[in-house]
């Protein structure tokens, strides 16, 4: 057995990394915003918003994928509008990124929300009395303090995106070089006779990438914790 990768396998790996990175990058700002609203605000319909955010976590991924297709497909009500502007998501890698981002969204919101809830609002009030406006308070006090939570959310979201299969294959199918991510490729290789060797190579690759991501995130988490003084004895 060789670990020398074929073109299709390399394509699947790089595509998965690209899709996951974009998925996290695009869903992070709204995840922070929604986490903030859920952690700090009180309003009617908050439970509903929370349920909506968690929906991708509890729905069968195929259902989410199909709903995406209905919405963002070329004939979907959003997809049609986007198509007029030249933006097509269905059966494109951008659609894979959208699907992966939506599937990882609840995990990111959850991690970041817990971090925001752990920040003492009194610290923000102290910054306010020192002249820091709303944006400055967030940037100088809240954001550094929730950095570990954001990091955890990013790692979770990235891992979810790397492993996303059901919604992706439903929404953007399994087109080599365009939408064939790592899990889709494993699935595809298993469907053809003699594809096991390639599938196993991809499985090993997936394990290496996952382990690497976990190790890097642990190291980052330790660094961030040290920087914000959470290790210091009380």
């Amino acid at each position, binding site marked *: 057995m060789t670990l020398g990768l074929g073109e299709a396998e390399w394509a699947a790996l790089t595509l998965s990394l690209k899709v996951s990175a974009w998925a996290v990058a695009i869903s992070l700002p709204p995840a922070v915003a929604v986490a903030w609203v859920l952690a700090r605000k009180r309003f009617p319909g908050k439970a509903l918003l929370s349920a909506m955010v968690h929906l991708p976590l509890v729905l069968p991924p195929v259902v989410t994928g199909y709903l995406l297709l209905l919405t963002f497909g070329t004939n979907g009500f959003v997809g049609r509008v986007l198509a007029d502007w030249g933006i097509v998501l269905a059966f494109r890698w951008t659609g894979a990124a959208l699907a992966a981002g939506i599937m990882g969204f609840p995990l990111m919101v959850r991690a970041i929300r817990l971090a925001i809830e752990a920040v*003492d609002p009194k610290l923000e009030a102290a*910054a306010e*009395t*020192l*002249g820091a406006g709303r944006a400055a308070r967030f940037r100088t006090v809240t954001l550094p303090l929730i950095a570990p939570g954001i990091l955890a959310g990013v790692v979770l979201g990235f891992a979810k995106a790397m492993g996303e299969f059901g919604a992706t294959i439903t929404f953007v199918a399994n087109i080599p070089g365009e939408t064939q991510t790592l899990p889709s490729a494993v699935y595809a290789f298993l469907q053809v006779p003699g594809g096991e060797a390639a599938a196993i190579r991809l499985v090993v690759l997936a394990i290496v990438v996952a382990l690497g991501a976990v190790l890097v995130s642990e190291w980052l988490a330790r660094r961030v914790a040290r920087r914000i003084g959470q290790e210091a004895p009380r």
Partner: protein
Amino acid sequence: MSLSVEIGHRFPGLDLDVAFEAGAGVTALFGPSGAGKSSVVNAIAGLLRPDAGRIALADTVLFDAAQGVHLPAARRRIGYVFQDGRLFPHMRVGANIEYGARFAPGGLDRAEMKRVVALLGLEALLVRRPGTLSGGEKQRVALARAWLSRPRLLLMDEPLAALDEPRKDEIFPYLERLRDVAQVPIVYVSHNLAEVARLADDLVVMQRGQVVLSGRAEAVLSDPKALPLVGIREAGAILPAHVAEHGTDGLSRLTLSGGELLLPGVVAPEGSTIRLRVLAQDVLLSKAAPEGLSSHNVLPVVVLALHRGMGPGVAVQLRAGEDVFLARITQRAATEMGLEPGMTCFAILNATAIPRGSIGGAAGVSPG
């Protein structure tokens, strides 16, 4: 620069209705827990928006319910030292202090920072994490941070309440220095009368959301009506005294407007002026000049007023020279002595009973 506060706010279980003025120096908001003191300073800082009223600092209107004015806290330029310090855990001490100047007009002035750091004795702490500081050190850092924001008014909400007695004694000299160099009014919240007596120039006594007494600290603390409000055990006047000389036997000779006292444990240098706290229950009265007494501290006094309360005690307001203070004696003793306003008699102050911590140092005294 003076602060004028007149606010009303309805909390569940507490109706806040407060009006007072705070000028130069330290104005203490004194009262039991739950009296609404913290809510008042939060309203001044802009962290609480009252239902009604008006708050103005010099000619800046900070809050006016009728006009719909509510200046955001970030734009009020009011320094706030919280009971729990509230240092930013992700910044070192130096960065915490610099944060104070970050949004201040003119930004950070290194020379000013150096001066404040030296004044509060923080040189050795600058690279430490807030989590590694003691309670007293945290409060000193919080003072420096608030100070560097160039506030037009400084609020302190029980800054010493979380500290034990030795730590309080450690931080007091710094507070007194700050008070003496501060060009801005300070509003100091406390439920501890010893602190208030040591620091306050003016005193606002609050109870259940209302101001029940206010005025110069000496006047309020020597007002018999204040006795039940501040607690019989804690009640006592503050008297200014001049340190005439330190004796070789450990006693210092202090001159007051109405006589002389000999006290141990006075650390202020000769020639300086200090505050004495004379607890009402540590003052005895005698109709005749006492002789053969173990105490040297006898002042001739004039009885100004008697205030009979609910219990067996009587608060007697006395004047020695220009100073007014209180004695708390029993109803029966007052009757037997035939005490009435205008009478002259002698007050015996048990000097050793005056706690060491209540002898406030004068400006410029080095701590410890």
